[in-house]
């Protein structure tokens, strides 16, 4: 089913704060098989010049997916989750994400378009600290296979 184009430009209220923990960063690093000590050990991270344990570059998917998820779950959009695969992803950083950060995400649907038989939808998420300091922007494009057929 074609996605509802009226959703382009819709922003969703800022998420509740996501508190980045050392434990979660360690778990994520283990899941991607990366043994870099700056993902696990505060002293190693500080020795490398960071204030605390650093998150891997793709870590914001952990919390940006959830905020975008609210937009995608709206039945009025007409998205069939069973046919969804990931199309594109980008992370644009102002600074790295660190353990101890309290982050809020504001998601906006920036684009819906057809490509062949598929429907493509892009969500931009602005990630800031609870104090309003910009940290990163994520761009997530999902593909609904066969959605435009």
């Amino acid at each position, binding site marked *: 089913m074609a996605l509802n184009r009226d959703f382009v430009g819709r922003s969703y209220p800022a998420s509740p704060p996501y508190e980045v923990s050392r434990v*979660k960063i360690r*778990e994520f690093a*283990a899941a991607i*098989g990366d043994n*870099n000590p700056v993902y696990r050990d505060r002293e190693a991270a500080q020795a490398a010049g960071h204030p605390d344990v650093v998150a891997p570059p793709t870590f914001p998917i952990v919390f940006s997916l959830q905020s975008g998820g609210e937009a995608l779950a709206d039945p009025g959009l007409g998205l069939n989750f069973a046919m969804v695969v990931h199309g*594109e992803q*980008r992370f644009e950083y102002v600074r*790295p994400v660190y353990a101890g950060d309290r982050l809020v995400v504001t998601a906006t649907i920036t684009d819906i378009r057809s490509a062949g038989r598929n429907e493509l939808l892009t969500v931009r998420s602005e990630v800031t600290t609870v104090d309003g300091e910009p940290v990163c922007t994520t761009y997530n494009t999902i593909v609904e296979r066969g959605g435009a057929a």
Partner: protein
Amino acid sequence: MTATVKYDEIEVGHEIPAVDYNVRRLNLVMYAGASGDFNQIHWNERFAKMVGLPDVIAHGMYTMAQAGRFVTDWAGDPGAVVDYGVRFSSMVVVPDDDQGATITVSGVVEEKLADKRVVVGLTARSGDARVLSKARAVVQLA
């Protein structure tokens, strides 16, 4: 927070040697738990086939994380990656056996920017398929 690679020592065309990353079903289960992406196509063969896929496929983000690791290992500092984007151009099919699949990542410095930043173009392959396209990272060098 400083990269170990020096901007002045890197020229456009500099090649970063390929690295193989193995992915088995266990990795996908771990990644599902750590990322919160429990889409069944990444762990349930029956479901994956029902929706027309050849088998369980890796999370695109798992592949993106491997290519990200390739960049951070080269740069020497995860904080040096200031921009990183990919397109998922093909699936990484992960069979239910002890070998799993292999993702081979390589890179080349495509451009030198101001402020000691470089653009690294990334190639990721699994089997015959190029699994990432338009994959590039902007890295802050020393």
